[in-house]
Protein backbone atom coordinates (compact mmCIF):
# COMPACT_ATOMS: atom_id res chain seq x y z
CA UNK A 1 0.00 0.00 0.00
CA UNK A 2 1.60 3.26 -1.05
CA UNK A 3 1.45 6.58 0.67
CA UNK A 4 -1.73 8.46 -0.07
CA UNK A 5 -1.88 11.77 -1.92
CA UNK A 6 -4.22 13.06 0.82
CA UNK A 7 -7.26 13.38 -1.40
CA UNK A 8 -8.29 10.01 -2.77
CA UNK A 9 -6.19 7.81 -0.50
CA UNK A 10 -4.44 6.35 -3.56
CA UNK A 11 -1.13 7.06 -5.29
CA UNK A 12 -1.29 9.87 -7.81
CA UNK A 13 -1.22 7.42 -10.69
CA UNK A 14 -3.81 4.65 -10.78
CA UNK A 15 -2.86 1.08 -11.40
CA UNK A 16 -4.77 1.19 -14.63
CA UNK A 17 -2.87 4.24 -15.88
CA UNK A 18 0.47 2.74 -14.85
CA UNK A 19 -0.39 -0.46 -16.68
CA UNK A 20 -1.18 1.54 -19.77
CA UNK A 21 2.34 2.96 -19.84
CA UNK A 22 4.09 -0.34 -19.05
CA UNK A 23 2.00 -2.22 -21.63
CA UNK A 24 2.67 0.47 -24.21
CA UNK A 25 6.41 0.15 -23.57
CA UNK A 26 6.17 -3.63 -23.97
CA UNK A 27 4.35 -3.24 -27.26
CA UNK A 28 6.83 -0.73 -28.65
CA UNK A 29 9.68 -3.14 -27.85
CA UNK A 30 7.85 -6.16 -29.24
CA UNK A 31 7.12 -4.23 -32.45
CA UNK A 32 10.74 -3.03 -32.86
CA UNK A 33 9.64 0.61 -32.40
CA UNK A 34 12.84 1.51 -30.57
CA UNK A 35 12.86 5.19 -31.52
CA UNK A 36 9.43 5.61 -29.94
CA UNK A 37 10.65 3.64 -26.92
CA UNK A 38 13.42 6.22 -26.41
CA UNK A 39 10.80 8.93 -26.06
CA UNK A 40 9.14 7.21 -23.10
CA UNK A 41 12.01 8.22 -20.82
CA UNK A 42 12.66 11.48 -19.03
CA UNK A 43 15.81 13.35 -20.08
CA UNK A 44 17.67 12.02 -17.04
CA UNK A 45 16.08 8.58 -17.30
CA UNK A 46 18.08 5.40 -16.70
CA UNK A 47 17.52 1.96 -18.16
CA UNK A 48 19.39 -0.56 -16.06
CA UNK A 49 19.89 -4.30 -15.82
CA UNK A 50 22.08 -4.86 -12.74
CA UNK A 51 23.92 -8.04 -11.91
CA UNK A 52 23.95 -6.92 -8.25
CA UNK A 53 21.20 -4.44 -7.44
CA UNK A 54 22.86 -3.52 -4.13
CA UNK A 55 26.06 -2.31 -5.85
CA UNK A 56 26.79 1.24 -6.98
CA UNK A 57 26.54 1.18 -10.78
CA UNK A 58 29.20 3.90 -11.02
CA UNK A 59 31.72 1.59 -9.33
CA UNK A 60 30.64 -1.99 -10.00
CA UNK A 61 29.68 -3.76 -13.22
CA UNK A 62 26.12 -3.80 -14.51
CA UNK A 63 24.79 -5.86 -17.36
CA UNK A 64 23.28 -2.64 -18.69
CA UNK A 65 23.26 0.85 -17.23
CA UNK A 66 22.15 3.29 -19.91
CA UNK A 67 21.49 7.00 -19.71
CA UNK A 68 19.81 8.82 -22.62
CA UNK A 69 22.97 8.97 -24.71
CA UNK A 70 23.74 5.27 -24.20
CA UNK A 71 20.17 4.32 -25.06
CA UNK A 72 20.42 6.32 -28.26
CA UNK A 73 23.68 4.58 -29.11
CA UNK A 74 22.14 1.22 -28.38
CA UNK A 75 19.20 1.91 -30.68
CA UNK A 76 21.45 3.36 -33.39
CA UNK A 77 23.57 0.20 -33.31
CA UNK A 78 20.46 -1.99 -33.48
CA UNK A 79 19.62 -0.20 -36.72
CA UNK A 80 23.12 -0.49 -38.12
CA UNK A 81 24.03 -4.13 -38.57
CA UNK A 82 24.82 -5.04 -34.98
CA UNK A 83 25.94 -8.64 -35.63
CA UNK A 84 24.53 -9.95 -32.36
CA UNK A 85 21.18 -8.51 -33.47
CA UNK A 86 21.33 -9.64 -37.07
CA UNK A 87 18.66 -10.93 -37.27
CA UNK A 88 16.90 -8.81 -34.66
CA UNK A 89 15.47 -10.66 -31.69
CA UNK A 90 11.74 -11.10 -31.70
CA UNK A 91 10.34 -10.54 -28.24
CA UNK A 92 7.03 -10.95 -26.48
CA UNK A 93 6.77 -9.23 -23.11
CA UNK A 94 4.28 -10.64 -20.59
CA UNK A 95 3.72 -8.29 -17.66
CA UNK A 96 1.94 -9.19 -14.42
CA UNK A 97 1.73 -8.62 -10.63
CA UNK A 98 1.73 -4.88 -11.16
CA UNK A 99 1.62 -2.65 -8.08
CA UNK A 100 1.82 1.12 -7.80
CA UNK A 101 3.07 3.03 -4.81
CA UNK A 102 3.82 6.64 -4.11
CA UNK A 103 7.49 7.52 -4.51
CA UNK A 104 9.36 10.15 -2.49
CA UNK A 105 8.68 13.05 -4.84
CA UNK A 106 5.10 14.32 -5.27
CA UNK A 107 5.00 13.77 -9.02
CA UNK A 108 6.57 10.32 -8.95
CA UNK A 109 5.36 6.78 -8.43
CA UNK A 110 7.07 3.43 -8.18
CA UNK A 111 5.65 0.65 -10.28
CA UNK A 112 6.68 -2.89 -9.52
CA UNK A 113 5.78 -5.75 -11.78
CA UNK A 114 6.96 -9.16 -12.87
CA UNK A 115 7.71 -9.98 -16.45
CA UNK A 116 8.39 -12.95 -18.65
CA UNK A 117 10.19 -11.98 -21.81
CA UNK A 118 10.08 -14.55 -24.57
CA UNK A 119 12.89 -13.99 -27.05
CA UNK A 120 14.04 -15.61 -30.24
CA UNK A 121 16.18 -14.68 -33.19
CA UNK A 122 14.61 -16.04 -36.37
CA UNK A 123 16.40 -17.02 -39.53
CA UNK A 124 17.47 -20.64 -39.34
CA UNK A 125 14.88 -23.07 -40.64
CA UNK A 126 17.08 -26.14 -40.23
CA UNK A 127 17.96 -25.50 -36.60
CA UNK A 128 21.72 -25.74 -37.27
CA UNK A 129 22.83 -22.24 -36.35
CA UNK A 130 23.80 -21.56 -32.78
CA UNK A 131 21.94 -18.65 -31.25
CA UNK A 132 19.12 -18.71 -33.80
CA UNK A 133 15.66 -20.26 -33.74
CA UNK A 134 15.92 -21.11 -30.03
CA UNK A 135 13.09 -19.50 -28.05
CA UNK A 136 14.27 -18.36 -24.61
CA UNK A 137 12.22 -17.28 -21.61
CA UNK A 138 13.73 -14.60 -19.39
CA UNK A 139 11.89 -14.20 -16.07
CA UNK A 140 12.46 -10.90 -14.29
CA UNK A 141 11.15 -8.41 -11.79
CA UNK A 142 10.93 -4.82 -12.95
CA UNK A 143 10.91 -1.61 -10.97
CA UNK A 144 9.86 1.57 -12.75
CA UNK A 145 10.05 5.06 -11.35
CA UNK A 146 7.56 7.14 -13.29
CA UNK A 147 7.51 10.92 -13.21
CA UNK A 148 4.87 13.37 -14.37
CA UNK A 149 6.36 16.02 -16.64
CA UNK A 150 4.08 18.53 -18.36
CA UNK A 151 1.08 16.37 -17.55
CA UNK A 152 2.62 13.31 -19.12
CA UNK A 153 4.00 10.30 -17.28
CA UNK A 154 7.48 9.22 -18.32
CA UNK A 155 10.01 6.64 -17.21
CA UNK A 156 12.58 8.17 -14.88
CA UNK A 157 14.12 4.76 -14.33
CA UNK A 158 13.51 1.22 -15.39
CA UNK A 159 15.37 -1.49 -13.54
CA UNK A 160 15.18 -5.08 -14.75
CA UNK A 161 16.16 -7.79 -12.28
CA UNK A 162 16.73 -10.98 -14.23
CA UNK A 163 16.34 -14.17 -12.24
CA UNK A 164 19.84 -15.28 -13.30
CA UNK A 165 21.46 -11.83 -13.24
CA UNK A 166 24.59 -12.96 -11.37
CA UNK A 167 25.26 -16.01 -13.57
CA UNK A 168 27.08 -16.13 -16.89
CA UNK A 169 24.49 -14.98 -19.43
CA UNK A 170 23.98 -15.20 -23.14
CA UNK A 171 23.14 -12.50 -25.66
CA UNK A 172 21.07 -9.64 -24.23
CA UNK A 173 21.67 -7.17 -27.01
CA UNK A 174 17.93 -6.69 -27.51
CA UNK A 175 16.06 -4.37 -25.16
CA UNK A 176 14.50 -6.05 -22.13
Amino acid sequence: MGKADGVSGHPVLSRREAEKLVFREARLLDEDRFEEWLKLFTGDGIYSVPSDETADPAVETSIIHDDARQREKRVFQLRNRHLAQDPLSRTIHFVSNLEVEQAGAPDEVLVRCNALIAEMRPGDHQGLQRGLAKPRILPCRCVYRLRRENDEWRIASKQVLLIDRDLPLQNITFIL
Partner: protein
Amino acid sequence: MTQTANLVRETDNDFMVSSRAYTDPAIFDRELQRIFENGWCYVAHESEIEKPGDFRTAAVGRIPVIVSRGDDGGVYVNINACRHRGTVVCHEERGNTRFFVCPYHGWSYRRDGSLHKVSARSNFPEDWGHDIEGLVPAARMANFRGLIFASFAPDAMDFDEYLGPLKRYADFWFDHALDGRVRVHKPWRAVYSGNWKFQLENSTDGWHARYVHVSALRTLAKFGEYNPKVGWPGCTRGFANGHGILERPRGDIPPELKPTFDLFRSRLQEKYGDERGGEMFARRHITVFPNIQLMEFKLRVIHPVEVDKTIVYEFPVELLGTDEEINRVIRQRLLTEVSISSGSPVSGMVNADDVEIFARTQTGLSSGRMRWLRFARGIHREVMERDNEWRGEDMDELPQRALYREWARRMA
Protein backbone atom coordinates in the same frame (compact mmCIF):
# COMPACT_ATOMS: atom_id res chain seq x y z
CA MET B 1 43.85 -42.93 -27.97
CA THR B 2 43.45 -39.31 -28.94
CA GLN B 3 45.02 -38.48 -32.27
CA THR B 4 46.92 -35.26 -31.76
CA ALA B 5 49.64 -35.61 -34.35
CA ASN B 6 49.30 -33.20 -37.23
CA LEU B 7 46.75 -30.84 -35.66
CA VAL B 8 48.95 -27.86 -36.47
CA ARG B 9 50.87 -27.57 -39.73
CA GLU B 10 53.45 -24.94 -40.43
CA THR B 11 55.43 -24.37 -43.60
CA ASP B 12 57.51 -21.40 -44.77
CA ASN B 13 54.47 -19.63 -46.12
CA ASP B 14 51.43 -21.14 -44.44
CA PHE B 15 50.10 -21.97 -41.01
CA MET B 16 47.13 -24.27 -40.49
CA VAL B 17 45.19 -25.58 -37.52
CA SER B 18 42.93 -28.61 -37.74
CA SER B 19 39.25 -27.83 -37.26
CA ARG B 20 39.12 -30.78 -34.83
CA ALA B 21 40.93 -28.58 -32.33
CA TYR B 22 37.59 -26.81 -31.86
CA THR B 23 35.12 -29.69 -32.13
CA ASP B 24 36.60 -32.95 -30.85
CA PRO B 25 35.63 -33.68 -27.20
CA ALA B 26 38.64 -36.00 -26.78
CA ILE B 27 40.97 -33.18 -27.77
CA PHE B 28 39.15 -30.91 -25.33
CA ASP B 29 39.73 -33.40 -22.47
CA ARG B 30 43.39 -33.53 -23.35
CA GLU B 31 43.59 -29.73 -23.39
CA LEU B 32 42.20 -29.55 -19.86
CA GLN B 33 44.83 -31.99 -18.62
CA ARG B 34 47.84 -30.96 -20.63
CA ILE B 35 47.34 -27.23 -20.92
CA PHE B 36 45.26 -26.23 -17.91
CA GLU B 37 45.97 -28.73 -15.12
CA ASN B 38 49.61 -29.39 -15.94
CA GLY B 39 50.50 -25.94 -17.19
CA TRP B 40 50.20 -22.58 -15.45
CA CYS B 41 46.56 -21.64 -15.05
CA TYR B 42 45.33 -18.28 -13.71
CA VAL B 43 42.98 -18.76 -10.75
CA ALA B 44 42.36 -15.45 -8.97
CA HIS B 45 43.60 -11.95 -8.27
CA GLU B 46 45.17 -11.19 -4.94
CA SER B 47 42.82 -8.24 -4.33
CA GLU B 48 39.87 -10.66 -4.25
CA ILE B 49 41.30 -12.23 -1.07
CA GLU B 50 42.80 -9.31 0.83
CA LYS B 51 42.17 -10.36 4.43
CA PRO B 52 42.99 -13.61 6.29
CA GLY B 53 40.11 -16.01 5.72
CA ASP B 54 39.04 -14.44 2.43
CA PHE B 55 38.51 -17.05 -0.23
CA ARG B 56 37.18 -17.57 -3.68
CA THR B 57 36.50 -20.76 -5.55
CA ALA B 58 37.85 -21.32 -9.03
CA ALA B 59 38.81 -24.12 -11.39
CA VAL B 60 42.03 -25.38 -12.91
CA GLY B 61 40.76 -27.30 -15.90
CA ARG B 62 38.27 -29.65 -14.28
CA ILE B 63 39.84 -29.42 -10.83
CA PRO B 64 37.74 -27.33 -8.42
CA VAL B 65 40.00 -25.23 -6.20
CA ILE B 66 39.78 -22.82 -3.29
CA VAL B 67 42.10 -19.84 -3.38
CA SER B 68 42.38 -18.48 0.14
CA ARG B 69 44.34 -16.12 2.37
CA GLY B 70 45.87 -17.87 5.37
CA ASP B 71 46.36 -16.47 8.87
CA ASP B 72 50.00 -15.93 7.92
CA GLY B 73 48.93 -13.63 5.07
CA GLY B 74 50.00 -16.16 2.45
CA VAL B 75 47.94 -17.23 -0.55
CA TYR B 76 46.92 -20.89 -0.78
CA VAL B 77 45.47 -22.92 -3.63
CA ASN B 78 43.92 -26.25 -2.62
CA ILE B 79 41.63 -28.76 -4.25
CA ASN B 80 38.10 -28.08 -3.09
CA ALA B 81 37.40 -31.65 -1.92
CA CYS B 82 37.30 -33.20 1.54
CA ARG B 83 40.02 -35.75 2.33
CA HIS B 84 37.35 -38.02 3.78
CA ARG B 85 34.98 -38.80 0.90
CA GLY B 86 35.78 -36.08 -1.60
CA THR B 87 32.83 -33.74 -1.03
CA VAL B 88 33.29 -30.11 -2.04
CA VAL B 89 33.99 -28.26 1.22
CA CYS B 90 33.14 -24.79 -0.09
CA HIS B 91 30.44 -24.05 -2.63
CA GLU B 92 30.26 -20.28 -2.44
CA GLU B 93 31.93 -18.15 -5.08
CA ARG B 94 33.63 -15.92 -2.53
CA GLY B 95 33.53 -14.97 1.14
CA ASN B 96 35.44 -15.06 4.41
CA THR B 97 35.64 -17.96 6.83
CA ARG B 98 37.55 -19.26 9.86
CA PHE B 99 37.34 -22.87 8.72
CA PHE B 100 36.25 -24.81 5.69
CA VAL B 101 33.90 -27.43 7.15
CA CYS B 102 32.81 -30.37 5.06
CA PRO B 103 28.99 -30.49 5.02
CA TYR B 104 28.99 -34.32 4.80
CA HIS B 105 30.66 -35.54 8.04
CA GLY B 106 32.06 -32.36 9.49
CA TRP B 107 35.79 -32.66 8.87
CA SER B 108 37.26 -29.18 9.05
CA TYR B 109 40.21 -27.37 7.48
CA ARG B 110 42.01 -24.17 8.36
CA ARG B 111 42.19 -21.13 6.12
CA ASP B 112 45.40 -22.43 4.55
CA GLY B 113 43.78 -25.80 3.85
CA SER B 114 45.57 -27.74 6.59
CA LEU B 115 43.50 -30.27 8.54
CA HIS B 116 41.89 -28.81 11.65
CA LYS B 117 39.79 -31.71 12.91
CA VAL B 118 38.51 -35.10 11.95
CA SER B 119 35.09 -35.17 13.59
CA ALA B 120 34.40 -37.92 16.18
CA ARG B 121 38.15 -38.56 16.40
CA SER B 122 37.83 -40.96 19.36
CA ASN B 123 36.15 -43.49 17.08
CA PHE B 124 39.33 -44.07 15.09
CA PRO B 125 42.42 -45.99 16.14
CA GLU B 126 45.00 -43.84 17.91
CA ASP B 127 47.60 -44.42 15.21
CA TRP B 128 45.22 -43.81 12.32
CA GLY B 129 45.18 -40.90 9.91
CA HIS B 130 48.43 -39.16 10.74
CA ASP B 131 49.20 -39.04 7.03
CA ILE B 132 46.22 -36.75 6.36
CA GLU B 133 47.67 -33.27 6.10
CA GLY B 134 44.74 -31.32 4.76
CA LEU B 135 43.19 -30.38 1.45
CA VAL B 136 45.34 -31.35 -1.53
CA PRO B 137 47.41 -28.31 -2.48
CA ALA B 138 48.28 -27.31 -6.03
CA ALA B 139 51.71 -28.64 -6.91
CA ARG B 140 53.00 -25.18 -7.81
CA MET B 141 51.82 -21.63 -7.32
CA ALA B 142 53.03 -18.32 -8.68
CA ASN B 143 52.06 -14.75 -7.85
CA PHE B 144 52.92 -12.30 -10.60
CA ARG B 145 52.02 -8.80 -9.43
CA GLY B 146 48.84 -10.08 -7.80
CA LEU B 147 47.85 -12.51 -10.54
CA ILE B 148 47.76 -15.95 -8.92
CA PHE B 149 48.59 -18.94 -11.11
CA ALA B 150 48.48 -22.59 -10.14
CA SER B 151 49.82 -25.77 -11.63
CA PHE B 152 49.19 -29.40 -10.74
CA ALA B 153 52.44 -30.49 -12.38
CA PRO B 154 55.33 -30.63 -9.86
CA ASP B 155 57.75 -30.23 -12.74
CA ALA B 156 56.01 -27.26 -14.34
CA MET B 157 58.41 -24.75 -15.84
CA ASP B 158 59.54 -21.99 -13.49
CA PHE B 159 56.95 -19.21 -13.86
CA ASP B 160 59.44 -16.43 -14.65
CA GLU B 161 60.85 -18.55 -17.42
CA TYR B 162 57.30 -19.34 -18.58
CA LEU B 163 56.47 -15.64 -18.84
CA GLY B 164 59.78 -14.89 -20.56
CA PRO B 165 60.00 -11.56 -22.39
CA LEU B 166 56.23 -11.04 -21.98
CA LYS B 167 57.09 -9.81 -18.49
CA ARG B 168 58.29 -6.48 -19.90
CA TYR B 169 54.80 -5.76 -21.28
CA ALA B 170 52.87 -7.26 -18.39
CA ASP B 171 54.88 -4.92 -16.17
CA PHE B 172 53.84 -1.99 -18.38
CA TRP B 173 50.24 -2.98 -17.82
CA PHE B 174 50.56 -3.04 -14.03
CA ASP B 175 52.74 0.07 -13.93
CA HIS B 176 49.79 2.08 -15.27
CA ALA B 177 48.84 2.04 -11.58
CA LEU B 178 51.19 4.48 -9.88
CA ASP B 179 51.35 2.14 -6.84
CA GLY B 180 52.13 -0.69 -9.23
CA ARG B 181 49.05 -2.56 -8.04
CA VAL B 182 45.49 -2.94 -9.23
CA ARG B 183 42.29 -3.98 -7.50
CA VAL B 184 39.72 -5.98 -9.43
CA HIS B 185 35.99 -5.42 -9.17
CA LYS B 186 33.26 -8.00 -9.60
CA PRO B 187 33.18 -9.31 -13.16
CA TRP B 188 30.80 -9.40 -16.05
CA ARG B 189 29.99 -13.02 -16.75
CA ALA B 190 29.07 -14.39 -20.13
CA VAL B 191 28.67 -17.82 -21.61
CA TYR B 192 29.01 -18.43 -25.33
CA SER B 193 28.33 -21.28 -27.62
CA GLY B 194 31.80 -21.98 -28.95
CA ASN B 195 35.28 -23.27 -28.19
CA TRP B 196 37.44 -21.47 -25.62
CA LYS B 197 40.25 -20.80 -28.08
CA PHE B 198 38.05 -18.46 -30.14
CA GLN B 199 38.17 -15.91 -27.34
CA LEU B 200 41.86 -16.53 -26.76
CA GLU B 201 42.65 -15.92 -30.45
CA ASN B 202 40.29 -13.02 -30.87
CA SER B 203 41.55 -10.66 -28.17
CA THR B 204 44.84 -10.20 -30.02
CA ASP B 205 43.29 -10.27 -33.50
CA GLY B 206 43.74 -6.81 -34.99
CA TRP B 207 42.13 -7.75 -38.27
CA HIS B 208 38.55 -8.59 -37.36
CA ALA B 209 37.49 -5.24 -35.88
CA ARG B 210 36.79 -3.54 -39.19
CA TYR B 211 34.35 -6.33 -40.05
CA VAL B 212 32.91 -7.63 -36.78
CA HIS B 213 32.76 -4.23 -35.13
CA VAL B 214 31.64 -2.15 -38.08
CA SER B 215 28.34 -1.35 -36.36
CA ALA B 216 30.07 -0.34 -33.12
CA LEU B 217 32.56 1.85 -34.98
CA ARG B 218 29.79 3.44 -37.03
CA THR B 219 27.84 4.16 -33.86
CA LEU B 220 30.83 5.63 -32.04
CA ALA B 221 31.67 7.77 -35.08
CA LYS B 222 28.09 9.01 -35.22
CA PHE B 223 28.32 10.07 -31.57
CA GLY B 224 31.71 11.74 -32.01
CA GLU B 225 33.64 9.15 -30.02
CA TYR B 226 35.67 7.66 -32.82
CA ASN B 227 37.32 9.26 -35.79
CA PRO B 228 37.42 6.90 -38.79
CA LYS B 229 40.15 9.05 -40.35
CA VAL B 230 42.60 8.18 -37.61
CA GLY B 231 44.46 5.08 -38.75
CA TRP B 232 45.17 2.08 -36.59
CA PRO B 233 48.90 1.69 -36.46
CA GLY B 234 50.49 -0.55 -33.87
CA CYS B 235 51.81 -4.07 -33.97
CA THR B 236 51.32 -7.63 -32.90
CA ARG B 237 53.73 -9.61 -30.79
CA GLY B 238 54.11 -13.33 -30.31
CA PHE B 239 56.12 -15.07 -27.61
CA ALA B 240 57.46 -18.46 -26.67
CA ASN B 241 55.04 -20.49 -24.49
CA GLY B 242 51.96 -19.21 -26.35
CA HIS B 243 51.68 -15.63 -25.15
CA GLY B 244 50.78 -12.76 -27.46
CA ILE B 245 49.99 -9.06 -27.72
CA LEU B 246 47.93 -6.73 -29.86
CA GLU B 247 49.32 -3.25 -29.36
CA ARG B 248 47.84 0.04 -30.56
CA PRO B 249 48.26 3.68 -29.63
CA ARG B 250 45.36 5.00 -27.54
CA GLY B 251 43.69 6.78 -30.44
CA ASP B 252 40.01 6.33 -29.66
CA ILE B 253 39.72 8.88 -26.87
CA PRO B 254 36.72 11.20 -27.27
CA PRO B 255 37.76 14.90 -27.24
CA GLU B 256 36.13 15.65 -23.87
CA LEU B 257 38.19 12.92 -22.20
CA LYS B 258 41.46 13.93 -23.81
CA PRO B 259 42.60 16.18 -20.93
CA THR B 260 42.26 13.26 -18.51
CA PHE B 261 44.20 10.92 -20.74
CA ASP B 262 46.86 13.62 -21.27
CA LEU B 263 47.14 13.87 -17.49
CA PHE B 264 47.40 10.09 -17.29
CA ARG B 265 50.24 10.02 -19.79
CA SER B 266 52.10 12.82 -18.05
CA ARG B 267 51.78 11.01 -14.70
CA LEU B 268 53.41 7.94 -16.22
CA GLN B 269 56.18 10.02 -17.79
CA GLU B 270 56.82 11.83 -14.50
CA LYS B 271 57.17 8.53 -12.71
CA TYR B 272 58.91 6.37 -15.28
CA GLY B 273 60.64 8.92 -17.52
CA ASP B 274 59.61 10.17 -20.96
CA GLU B 275 60.69 7.14 -22.90
CA ARG B 276 59.38 4.31 -20.74
CA GLY B 277 56.29 6.29 -19.76
CA GLY B 278 55.52 6.98 -23.41
CA GLU B 279 56.08 3.38 -24.46
CA MET B 280 53.89 2.13 -21.63
CA PHE B 281 51.05 4.40 -22.63
CA ALA B 282 49.69 2.22 -25.40
CA ARG B 283 46.58 0.13 -25.51
CA ARG B 284 47.68 -3.49 -25.22
CA HIS B 285 45.74 -6.71 -25.17
CA ILE B 286 48.13 -9.17 -23.53
CA THR B 287 47.48 -12.91 -23.53
CA VAL B 288 49.13 -14.95 -20.82
CA PHE B 289 48.58 -18.42 -22.22
CA PRO B 290 46.21 -20.16 -21.72
CA ASN B 291 43.42 -18.42 -19.82
CA ILE B 292 44.00 -14.79 -18.92
CA GLN B 293 44.21 -11.62 -20.96
CA LEU B 294 45.23 -8.22 -19.64
CA MET B 295 42.90 -5.94 -21.57
CA GLU B 296 42.20 -2.21 -21.60
CA PHE B 297 41.65 -1.68 -17.84
CA LYS B 298 40.13 -5.09 -17.31
CA LEU B 299 41.19 -8.70 -16.83
CA ARG B 300 39.58 -11.19 -19.15
CA VAL B 301 39.51 -14.76 -17.85
CA ILE B 302 38.52 -17.66 -20.08
CA HIS B 303 37.00 -20.77 -18.59
CA PRO B 304 36.44 -23.75 -20.90
CA VAL B 305 33.29 -25.69 -19.95
CA GLU B 306 32.79 -28.04 -22.89
CA VAL B 307 34.37 -28.28 -26.30
CA ASP B 308 31.70 -25.90 -27.61
CA LYS B 309 30.83 -23.94 -24.47
CA THR B 310 32.92 -21.28 -22.74
CA ILE B 311 32.50 -18.83 -19.89
CA VAL B 312 34.23 -15.46 -20.09
CA TYR B 313 34.74 -13.22 -17.06
CA GLU B 314 35.69 -9.57 -17.43
CA PHE B 315 37.01 -7.95 -14.24
CA PRO B 316 37.33 -4.15 -14.35
CA VAL B 317 40.45 -2.92 -12.59
CA GLU B 318 41.09 0.09 -10.44
CA LEU B 319 44.59 1.58 -10.66
CA LEU B 320 45.86 1.99 -7.11
CA GLY B 321 47.81 5.16 -6.36
CA THR B 322 46.50 6.80 -9.53
CA ASP B 323 44.49 10.06 -9.48
CA GLU B 324 40.79 9.55 -8.75
CA GLU B 325 40.03 11.68 -11.82
CA ILE B 326 41.76 9.10 -14.01
CA ASN B 327 40.11 6.14 -12.32
CA ARG B 328 36.75 7.87 -12.57
CA VAL B 329 37.05 8.32 -16.33
CA ILE B 330 38.23 4.73 -16.77
CA ARG B 331 35.25 3.51 -14.72
CA GLN B 332 32.88 5.68 -16.66
CA ARG B 333 34.11 4.29 -19.96
CA LEU B 334 34.06 0.72 -18.73
CA LEU B 335 30.89 0.65 -16.70
CA THR B 336 28.37 3.17 -17.84
CA GLU B 337 29.22 3.85 -21.44
CA VAL B 338 28.62 1.68 -24.41
CA SER B 339 32.14 2.31 -25.66
CA ILE B 340 34.99 0.42 -27.25
CA SER B 341 36.32 -0.24 -23.77
CA SER B 342 32.95 -1.22 -22.34
CA GLY B 343 32.99 -4.69 -20.99
CA SER B 344 30.02 -6.91 -21.28
CA PRO B 345 30.04 -9.69 -23.86
CA VAL B 346 26.36 -10.11 -22.96
CA SER B 347 25.08 -6.66 -23.78
CA GLY B 348 28.05 -4.50 -24.79
CA MET B 349 28.51 -2.79 -28.07
CA VAL B 350 31.72 -4.55 -29.04
CA ASN B 351 32.22 -7.83 -27.18
CA ALA B 352 28.71 -9.08 -27.81
CA ASP B 353 29.51 -9.11 -31.51
CA ASP B 354 32.66 -11.13 -30.84
CA VAL B 355 30.82 -13.90 -29.03
CA GLU B 356 28.21 -13.87 -31.80
CA ILE B 357 31.03 -14.58 -34.27
CA PHE B 358 32.31 -17.39 -32.03
CA ALA B 359 28.89 -19.07 -32.15
CA ARG B 360 28.75 -18.64 -35.92
CA THR B 361 32.23 -20.13 -36.26
CA GLN B 362 31.35 -23.12 -34.07
CA THR B 363 28.32 -23.67 -36.32
CA GLY B 364 30.48 -23.51 -39.42
CA LEU B 365 32.98 -26.01 -38.06
CA SER B 366 30.34 -28.52 -36.95
CA SER B 367 30.26 -30.07 -40.41
CA GLY B 368 33.60 -31.70 -39.61
CA ARG B 369 34.58 -31.12 -43.22
CA MET B 370 36.61 -27.98 -42.70
CA ARG B 371 39.90 -29.83 -42.51
CA TRP B 372 42.28 -26.88 -42.07
CA LEU B 373 41.82 -23.35 -40.80
CA ARG B 374 44.36 -20.76 -41.92
CA PHE B 375 46.44 -18.38 -39.85
CA ALA B 376 48.96 -17.13 -42.40
CA ARG B 377 48.51 -13.38 -42.56
CA GLY B 378 51.96 -11.79 -42.27
CA ILE B 379 53.79 -15.10 -41.93
CA HIS B 380 56.44 -13.82 -44.38
CA ARG B 381 57.27 -10.78 -42.25
CA GLU B 382 57.66 -12.02 -38.68
CA VAL B 383 60.59 -10.15 -37.16
CA MET B 384 62.49 -11.49 -34.18
CA GLU B 385 62.49 -8.64 -31.65
CA ARG B 386 64.59 -10.45 -29.04
CA ASP B 387 64.97 -14.01 -27.82
CA ASN B 388 61.54 -15.67 -27.67
CA GLU B 389 59.71 -12.60 -28.98
CA TRP B 390 58.51 -11.88 -32.51
CA ARG B 391 56.82 -8.79 -33.94
CA GLY B 392 54.42 -8.39 -36.83
CA GLU B 393 52.11 -5.78 -38.31
CA ASP B 394 49.00 -4.88 -36.36
CA MET B 395 46.64 -7.11 -38.30
CA ASP B 396 48.96 -10.07 -38.74
CA GLU B 397 47.90 -13.43 -37.35
CA LEU B 398 51.16 -13.65 -35.47
CA PRO B 399 49.87 -13.94 -31.87
CA GLN B 400 47.61 -16.76 -33.06
CA ARG B 401 50.58 -18.60 -34.57
CA ALA B 402 52.50 -18.21 -31.33
CA LEU B 403 49.51 -19.59 -29.46
CA TYR B 404 49.17 -22.65 -31.69
CA ARG B 405 52.89 -23.39 -31.76
CA GLU B 406 52.70 -23.76 -27.98
CA TRP B 407 49.37 -25.54 -28.13
CA ALA B 408 50.81 -28.14 -30.53
CA ARG B 409 53.87 -28.63 -28.32
CA ARG B 410 51.75 -29.20 -25.23
CA MET B 411 49.23 -31.47 -26.93
CA ALA B 412 51.84 -33.71 -28.60
